[in-house]
């Protein structure tokens, strides 16, 4: 694992730190030895399987759970020494806990974020009201304004709760699975807002995410968490390696693509009797269809830099490869021809022809002449 900490940084440069943190429930440690250092405006994402202890860490650093050992330092102060009141001006949270307030509009919910700043009776001033509107504008929930919170969909609720957290004007924002219940559009919007808050207002963000693909895209640092196992956190590109993700989530079927952060179902089992000839991404829908129908296939001839190749590696039984920008060599051609002639079916797509892939066209012509091979063209 690549270690990020201790790169000649002065400890005082960090806004949020944990040292040898030990967390768990009722005195029983679930995870220990957690060391985190985050500067202002950095985003740290916890990833890992269900029940790994992501929420436990988040609850511990938000003072919802007692620390079982070690230290948490926010700003200059130790977490246990901060009163809840002091903490509320530094830290805002978005939790998985269900909120069912009676007769409260979305604005009312967002306005509860102003709590640390209002007087004895909690009466909102004009400025507070404007901040509520602002926060709702930022998260794009303004149109929900006077609707009852309980009447919203889960996704809308989640966004209102984010507006609430922003309204609290925190220095650090802690979110427990903020993207659950959100559709793709809002997932992206939410993460974009988080990035914006982090960069523009210097808010430090710590959150847990289920979507490892998104985690890689939004985070400055990623910390893998698994029950009983503490990994050092690191840059996403160091963490998101196929081998490590498999080990973290403990899956042996299916695959994870570190470049796009996408996951794929396991390839179809058995002897491949189908061959796909394609290029430039045209093969991708074909691979997916075959995979869903459980038909094993061979893909080729593909150039190593062809986008089809990225997916074929995970879904095809065998991929016949050629080095980029080169005319197809004899051994590769032979291998492909052999495979094609053994197949019962050959599926081909539109392929842009050029001087390099002449021989692929040759191969296709030959296959089409064979009566025993079913040919299917997919435009």
């Amino acid at each position, binding site marked *: 694992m690549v270690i990020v900490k201790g790169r000649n940084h002065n400890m005082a440069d960090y806004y949020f730190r944990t040292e040898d943190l030990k967390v768990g429930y009722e005195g029983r440690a679930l995870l220990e030895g957690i060391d985190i250092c985050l500067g202002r405006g950095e985003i740290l994402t916890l990833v890992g399987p269900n029940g790994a202890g992501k929420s436990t860490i988040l609850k511990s650093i*938000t*003072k*919802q759970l007692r620390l079982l050992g070690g230290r948490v330092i926010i700003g200059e102060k130790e977490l246990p020494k901060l*009163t*809840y*009141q*002091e*903490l*509320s*001006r530094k*830290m*805002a*949270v978005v*939790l998985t*806990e*269900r*909120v*069912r*307030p*009676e*007769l*409260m*509009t979305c*604005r*009312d*919910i967002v*306005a*509860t974020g102003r*709590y*640390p700043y*209002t007087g*004895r*009776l*909690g*009466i*909102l001033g*004009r400025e507070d*009201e*404007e901040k*509520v*509107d602002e926060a709702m504008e930022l998260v794009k929930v*303004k149109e929900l*304004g*006077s609707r009852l919170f*309980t009447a919203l969909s889960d996704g809308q609720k989640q966004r209102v709760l984010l507006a609430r957290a922003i309204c*609290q004007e925190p220095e650090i924002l802690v979110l427990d699975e903020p993207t659950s219940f959100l559709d793709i559009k809002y997932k992206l919007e939410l993460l974009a807002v988080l990035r914006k808050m982090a960069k523009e207002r210097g808010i430090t963000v710590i959150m847990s995410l289920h979507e490892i693909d998104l985690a890689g895209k939004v985070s400055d640092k990623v910390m893998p968490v698994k029950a009983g196992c503490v990994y050092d956190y690191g840059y996403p590109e160091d963490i998101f390696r196929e081998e490590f993700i498999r080990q973290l989530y403990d899956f042996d079927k299916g695959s994870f693509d570190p470049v796009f952060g996408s996951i794929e179902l396991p390839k179809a089992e058995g002897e491949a009797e189908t061959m796909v000839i394609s290029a430039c991404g045209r093969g991708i829908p074909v691979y997916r269809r075959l995979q869903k129908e459980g038909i094993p296939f061979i893909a080729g001839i593909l150039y190593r830099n062809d986008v089809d190749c990225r997916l074929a590696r995970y879904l095809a039984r065998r991929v016949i490869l050629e080095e980029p920008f080169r005319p197809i060599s004899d051994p590769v051609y032979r291998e492909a021809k052999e495979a094609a002639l053994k197949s019962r079916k050959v599926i081909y797509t539109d392929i842009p022809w050029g001087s390099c892939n002449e021989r692929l066209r040759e191969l296709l012509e030959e296959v089409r002449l064979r009566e025993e091979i079913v040919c299917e063209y997919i435009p």
Partner: protein
Amino acid sequence: MTENTFHYENLRRRSRYAAVFVIMLSAFLAMVMININTGTVDISAAEIGRIIFAGGKEGTEYRIIWLIRMPRVLMAAILGGALSLSGFLLQTFFHNPVAGPYILGISSGAKMTVALVMIFPLGRIGGMSSFALVGAAFAGSLISVGFVLLVSKRLQSMSSLLVAGIMISYICSAVTDFIVTFAEDSDIVNLRGWSMGSFSGMSWGNVKVGALIIGAAFLLTFLLSKPIGAYQMGEAYARSMGVDIRMFRVILIVLSSVFSACVTAFAGPISFVGIAVPQLVKLALQTSKPLIVIPASFLGGAVFCMFCDLTARMAFAPLELNISTVTSVFGAPVVIWMLIRRSAN
């Protein structure tokens, strides 16, 4: 575009709050007047005015107004308000809209200890002082609440909480009956009347003690509006807003017990006010903001209890009904309707 701002929404709401408060205050004054004006002995309004404001201190009519009707209506108002607030606090505490001092067995707990104090020698030393009664009721309330808390820690669902409350209420009633078996006849008569719930026989002494305790508790509750509002968001969020939950929970329970103990000590257990009134008030105001709902609940409870007491006195005059009979008739349907509305959502 200015209409779609929080400020505008709050302005609109404030006028609604004002309207509701004006209506409730008028109802309050009307109920006070009607209550004083009504009774088996007919006294004209002019006469009443003369007695109250001019202060003619002679005659039966003076005594009826000053020593019977006035303390009674004031007590109904104060205790009604207390009951309603006790319900509101318990609903907040348990995050459960049908929680209330009666249904959770808190009133029964208070009844048990009050019966104990009334019957055993302790009570006979120079008659019972109001404070001793309230103190006993408070202890009983805390016993019940303690039990319910213990059970609710293990059971999360709304209905099991109520079942626990009803069970403790049965246990306390059983103990009360057991105590009554050993009581002397004169005590039993006292106890019977009281244990059915009634605002009759209130003295100015009672009013003073009641007003003092409940006034103080009301003030404290009102000052807690802000953390109560935070607590409505759930414990974890409340904590993240800076509320010290542990302390707050204790205060909440003590306050609601003080309210319901006062009521039980003076007027016996009274059902349904604690559940029905805060709900109706919230609906009328269209908010659950404690800063508004706390005074409104108090006012609403006062109006409701004065109305129910009036009905208890007058419906079958000269026979007088138990106050709980009347509050159940009006309160229970509200609760049932609420449950249906809730499940329909």
